């Protein structure tokens, strides 16, 4: 029997496949298509302290091999999450990661205190310093190494739970922001959030998205994500969770070879609700065919020229 389990810092996962924030809600809809207990973990929709209705107007534009979205962190807020969504998630029988977003340092602190309390049934907090569709917090903080350091440092002492830092690719040097996350006490970095993009309707001469810009996801961004994972793997010592355009098991293996300890599946679930289950099945087959005792042995095995 192949061992698909992976370890990210202090947390064990049954396999490296985690559902990415913003592409699985709180697991309700996908649980109708997939036995969620077979998935490595699930990362909640980005949460804010208070409920948010998100951005108005058109929020999606199809692109070559991907899509732009400008949802803008629509979510029920921390209290409704704790009351209605978290109890549902804990029943899924998989690792629970909560994506924490905020307008200000104070927001992040309050949320980390609540969600990171020992009695809250959450395995990992993922700090969202990378959503490109809001005007405060998130990517505006994660755009600089200084911003990342200051934010992670401000919340680090408030919880004993693992803190993953989800970073934006919209920076000059991803290894600098990843380093800042590590230096401030982050337990892992999640690479990458969406790339900021624009789609134009030539009939109306306006952006397709009413937010003007949006975040690009899907296979279009996979090479960028792989490069960033590989670059950071050589330069930092905390684990990396790879995310960006993963559609199949071969993509997962590429990310692991580049240095990822685990991966997150986002846009693939939008196209095929059971994509994650198929990927796990195919990973098992790959490991068997290649006589791998443990899938985790692939991490960082890329041999550069």
């Amino acid at each position, binding site marked *: 029997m192949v061992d698909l389990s992976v370890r990210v810092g202090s947390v064990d996962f049954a396999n490296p496949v985690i559902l990415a924030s913003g592409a699985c809600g709180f697991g309700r809809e996908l649980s109708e298509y997939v036995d969620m207990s077979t998935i490595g973990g699930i990362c909640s929709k980005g949460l804010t302290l208070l409920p948010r209705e998100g951005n*108005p107007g058109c929020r999606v534009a199809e692109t070559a091999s991907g899509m732009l979205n400008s949802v803008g962190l629509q979510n029920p807020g921390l209290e409704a999450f704790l009351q209605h969504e978290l109890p549902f998630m804990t029943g899924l029988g998989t690792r629970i990661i909560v994506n924490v977003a905020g307008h200000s340092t104070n927001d992040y602190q309050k949320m980390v205190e609540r969600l990171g309390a020992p009695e809250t049934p959450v395995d990992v907090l993922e700090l969202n310093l990378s959503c490109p569709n809001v005007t405060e917090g998130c990517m505006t903080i994660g755009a600089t190494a200084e911003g990342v350091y200051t934010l992670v440092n401000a919340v680090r002492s408030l919880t004993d739970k693992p803190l993953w830092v989800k970073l934006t690719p919209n920076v000059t040097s991803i290894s600098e922001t990843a380093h800042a996350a590590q230096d401030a006490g982050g337990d892992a970095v999640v690479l990458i959030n969406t790339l900021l993009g624009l789609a134009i309707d030539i009939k109306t001469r306006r952006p397709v998205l009413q937010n003007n810009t949006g975040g690009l996801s899907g296979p279009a961004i996979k090479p960028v994500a792989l490069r960033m994972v590989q670059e950071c793997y050589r330069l930092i010592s905390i684990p990396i969770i790879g995310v960006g355009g993963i559609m199949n098991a071969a993509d997962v293996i590429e990310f692991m070879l580049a240095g990822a300890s685990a991966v997150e599946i986002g846009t693939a679930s939008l196209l095929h609700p059971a994509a994650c289950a198929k990927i796990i099945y195919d990973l098992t087959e790959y490991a068997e065919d290649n006589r791998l005792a443990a899938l985790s042995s692939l991490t960082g095995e890329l041999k550069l020229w």
Partner: protein
Amino acid sequence: MLKEYEAALVEKKLLGTGNILLTFACADIAKMAEPGQFVNVSCSLFLKRPFGICTVDPIGNTFSIGVKEVGAGTQDILTASVGDVFSILGPLGHGFSFDGVKKIIAVGGGTGIYPLYFALDKAKRKGIPAICVNGFRSRQDAFFLSECEELSGKTIFASDAGDLGVKGTVMDALELLQPEDLADATVLVVGPEIMMKKVSAWANQHKLSCQVSLEKRMACGFGICLVCVCKIKSDAENMPFHHVRCCKEGPVFQASEVIW
């Protein structure tokens, strides 16, 4: 467990100008679908494309959708041949509610006629009387004329060109309805947004319950991505509206809840 289906195209039938009825083999969708629900259909582009379900044949294990070319995705789907296999999710969303419905007035414009045809079929099977009001550009563009007449006690067509039924829009056609037509009626509307807004206002003016099927750009179609939201009135304090998923809570909403 729900699943994604691999469904073969079994029939392609040309209707009016540019409108084609595509029939797929899929027993589960044929058996589960309700009027107003939709399917999300793969094409050669990145995302699937949503279409209201038009007919079901639970014995022959097929269902159909009406497709009109509006862009590259629909163009691609329309070039398919019988036997081609599509990846399909469905039936999706909430369709029309028939709870307490005594009579329906189905008002359709453009491709809105497809899901309404399914609703008229269900009404007929349930013994609910129906009136059908359909708008077209011209007689050349029109389709499902005899089908609608067969399923409805009264049918009024409108055409912009004036060569079919009333000259004008469905709003002009609605004016021809008599007080006894309106009594106890529930209005079901599917069509361009501006038409649905006007028909909703008309229904409100006549104190008729009204259901509309909203259309937004979608991605997943089953509620996880939140890109297709509609503005729905809210009871919450300090919150005039909620963004609600068109694909999951909709596409059919009570017209009185919708903020246009």
